[in-house]
């Protein structure tokens, strides 16, 4: 990775990339009844381009540009301005069918906005979700007192880069310009186009993305300096060739959404192309084994890391683990075994397919695991010798800043990148034709819905918006670099749950 990449065009510029659909979802519905006479007043009044002329008639409104009731009382509120009062505004009922507690409709629309414009929206949610605890009850101090409005510009003094090799061994230093890299999504759980788009965006931002369990498609080779190859329990597509090619090798011991369970790729997603990459049987579900069957204890783990270090003397080793009770023991065990990066994947992380019982019940969310591990590594005196990355349920720039304040060095993204490509969190990715957005599917017809450049730009725009917000947060906290924020729980505040049934305790 050329160090000077930073100066070329940094940060990668934003290009407005609207939705692929004719009528993108919106929070509001504008109804135009028959007595509209196409007078066009609404067209001139609305500064957001909601109403447009098509020939002589005013076409049906682009509702997704409308800022809704916030416009009431202003001089450009089309509903009042319409002489025939043919227009009426209403909350869009379909919003109830979009998203869930973790990713509420408002946050999804806010993320789509950021993916389109590369900056945070004014009238949509972009900071928290509706999960009721964890990130959604944590605030930065400055959020409590009314913040001065932000102007969202870049400040070159504030650095957001982090080094990934702090062991001080004779392996090369790897620096990424933003404190996040893309998590493992295998070829098979998502389409090849989406994989390439993630790689392209991460290359532009001088960070990494991970191949996931399904092997290392050759189409990714052009981005090989920005690719983390993953060795998972099934050892699919793992060859010395792919290990030698990568600068970071990640051992996937577990995935946050289904901790302790191997990969689930159901039969109809195992197309001939996927089967060829994994050298398995088309149409046959792939339940990769649960543990690494060659690693049943921490000294086996040490052997396993030494093996990859022997194959590729230049690569850094990342260990992806989930968040059990003894996550601090696992982390310290991994450090002693020689890992450079410990990646904790929280239980509310994303997945292509996972048993519902596992997603909800096994292991703990990332917000609770990171402080535990950070504190333990500090007590052990090795915190500054290892990189602690946190993933699983990171949705917004504020989540990134909060988890770093709780003790992580950086973040691993996953679902948020797919939401940037207009995923609606409809939870149908596990079956072959499941993803009607063409993202988490290997069905040739459906995956054609995603174009490479469109997708790469969407993800890059989202990263740009995060970059702006991160700089703004650091500035408000009076910090010069994201490294200063690590472990600074003093900047955080937790909003207590109002114990209505505290007498029931």
């Amino acid at each position, binding site marked *: 990775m050329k160090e000077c990449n930073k100066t070329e065009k940094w940060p990668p510029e934003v290009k407005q990339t609207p*939705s692929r*659909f004719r*009528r*993108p979802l919106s929070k509001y519905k504008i109804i135009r009844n028959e007595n509209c006479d196409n007078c066009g007043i609404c067209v001139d009044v609305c500064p957001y381009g909601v109403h447009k002329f098509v020939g002589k008639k005013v076409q049906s409104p682009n509702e997704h540009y409308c800022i809704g009731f916030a416009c009431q009382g202003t001089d450009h509120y089309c509903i009042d301005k319409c002489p025939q009062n043919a227009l009426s505004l209403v909350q869009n009922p*379909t919003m*109830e069918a979009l*998203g*869930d507690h973790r990713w509420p409709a408002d946050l999804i629309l806010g993320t789509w906005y950021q993916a389109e414009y590369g900056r945070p929206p004014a009238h949509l949610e972009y900071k928290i979700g509706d*999960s*009721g605890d*964890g990130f959604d009850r944590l605030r930065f101090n400055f959020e409590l007192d009314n913040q001065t409005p932000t102007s969202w510009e870049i400040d070159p003094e504030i650095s957001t880069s982090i080094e990934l090799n702090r062991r001080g061994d004779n392996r090369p230093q790897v620096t990424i310009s933003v404190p996040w890299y893309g998590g493992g999504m295998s070829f098979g759980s998502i389409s090849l186009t989406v994989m390439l788009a993630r790689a392209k965006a991460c290359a532009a931002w001088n960070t990494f993305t991970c191949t996931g369990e399904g092997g290392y498609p050759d189409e990714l080779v052009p981005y090989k300096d920005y690719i983390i190859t993953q060795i998972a329990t099934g050892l699919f597509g793992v060859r010395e060739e792919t290990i030698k090619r990568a600068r970071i090798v990640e051992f996937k*011991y*577990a995935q946050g*959404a289904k*901790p*302790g369970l191997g990969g689930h790729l159901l039969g109809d997603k195992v197309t001939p192309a996927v089967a060829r990459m994994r050298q398995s049987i088309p149409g046959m579900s792939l*339940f990769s*084994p*649960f*543990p690494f069957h060659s690693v*049943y*204890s*921490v000294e086996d783990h040490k052997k396993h890391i030494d093996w990859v270090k022997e194959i590729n003397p230049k690569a850094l080793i990342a260990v992806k683990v*989930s968040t*059990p009770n003894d996550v601090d023991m*696992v982390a310290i*065990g991994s450090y002693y075994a020689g890992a450079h990066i410990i990646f904790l994947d929280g*239980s509310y992380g*994303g*997945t292509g*397919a996972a*048993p*519902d*019982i596992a*997603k*909800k*019940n*096994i*292991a703990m*969310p990332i917000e*609770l695991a*990171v*402080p*535990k591990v950070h504190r333990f590594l500090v007590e052990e005196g090795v915190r500054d010798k290892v990189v602690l990355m946190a993933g699983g349920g990171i949705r917004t720039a504020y989540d990134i800043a909060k988890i770093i304040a709780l003790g992580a060095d950086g973040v691993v993204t996953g679902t948020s990148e797919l939401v940037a490509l207009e995923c*609606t*969190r*409809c*939870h*149908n*990715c*596990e079956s072959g*034709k*499941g993803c009607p957005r063409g993202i988490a599917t290997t069905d040739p017809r459906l995956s054609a819905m995603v174009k490479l450049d469109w997708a790469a730009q969407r993800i890059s725009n989202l990263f740009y918006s995060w970059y702006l917000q991160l700089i703004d947060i650091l500035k408000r906290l009076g910090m010069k670099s994201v490294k200063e924020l690590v472990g600074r729980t003093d900047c955080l505040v*937790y*909003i*207590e749950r109002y*114990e209505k049934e505290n*007498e*029931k*305790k």
Partner: protein
Amino acid sequence: MGKYHIETKQVPPRFLPPGPYCVIAKEEGCLGCKYCVKKACPYGVYEKKGFDIKELRETSSYYCHHCLFCVESCPAGLISLMPNPEYQRLGDGYWTPEIITSLWRQAETGKIPVSGAGYGGPFVGEGFDEMWTDMSEIVRPTRDGIHGREYISTAVELGRKPLALEFDPDKKMVSQIPPFVEISLPVLLSLPSWGRWDRNVLFSLAKAAAKLNTLFIMPLKEFDSTFLSFIDHLMLSVETKEAIRSIPAQAQFIEIPLDLVSEIDVVRQGHSERIISVKVPFGPGVEKTCLDLVQNGVPIIHLFADEHGREMVELRPRFIKDAIQDVHFSLVEQGVRDQVTLLASGGIAMAEHMGKTIICGADAVVVGQALMVALECRLCKECEKGLPCPVEINAIDSEWGAQRIINLMGSWHSQLLEVMGAMGMRDVRRLRGELGRAIFYRDVIKESFANIKKVSGE
């Protein structure tokens, strides 16, 4: 001892279940496109939907997976989704529509509910949702038990067990072992505490219990000779003192209420191999009651809470997971826990509840209401008000009913294998009371957010 396997078969529902959202496709303003988006729906909602004679409504809600593809692609924006009221009427605050729909899916397919994307629910909830289960990695491995790849035993013994055995010098066993029975999965079937269920439902449960190799706790008053062929899978539940006389000779398992515990010898008279279970409500002082029962030789104690898993007591009712812990640990403290089998029931609505109750100290659980949901019951409780049942549950065919319950238990069994596999456990009996494999939200958040300033709530 060979490998236990549950034969599941696709059994579609008799009534089309309501889906969460209704698809409303306006006709006014339709541009009549050549390639209408309705044809491109990956789930074929618009081909499959029809008119439901019973509900007098469209059936699109069942097939729609709210992927919103059509909503966004229709150029004229004619399609929108509205939450389906029939869906929101299902069940109640504890037995949510999502739980009921998931139980229907499992009863239909027998498969583990698998879905894409991360967990979308709230960060934490009440009762069972305040507790997560642990997993193993690196320091110790998981158990590769999915679909029986590496065997995980879910068998449990019901009955009294000696603390230790006695052998003579040439290794022959001299101690007398009290009778115990092995059931192949840690679940007993029963009827819910409410509703009137007639023979088809009872036969479904009896057949399922036999196929699953577990027990169906059946009211004695409903028993007659037609059920004799299932006798060694039935635990007859006695309600009154007089009824004891009418217990059939072949019955091996009897359940008696707490107030009839003095009659235990009468029940056991002449049938030393009979195994008696005493039904005890969760409540204040239940620990003392259980200790006395164990001390005078009761082999099985069935502790029950209400359908929401709460103690039947006004002030601060404990939830089943906390109450069973108190009973379990008080018996451990007295050194007698391993002699008795503890069953727990009340509020067991999902597979994870079964696992968590066992972790908190129960040897096995008893499910009732969940089985009725498997038979398509919508918990509308109309039958309680004398109104006709919307799904005519008493008209089901008992083969159909039995397979539905077998499918549900098959799915629960597979999910238990997933959870135990993730922990690296190979035998469900070792899971009992293993709090090391549980994560409690209150403890963890106290420790993790210890040094973060707290601000009072909204």
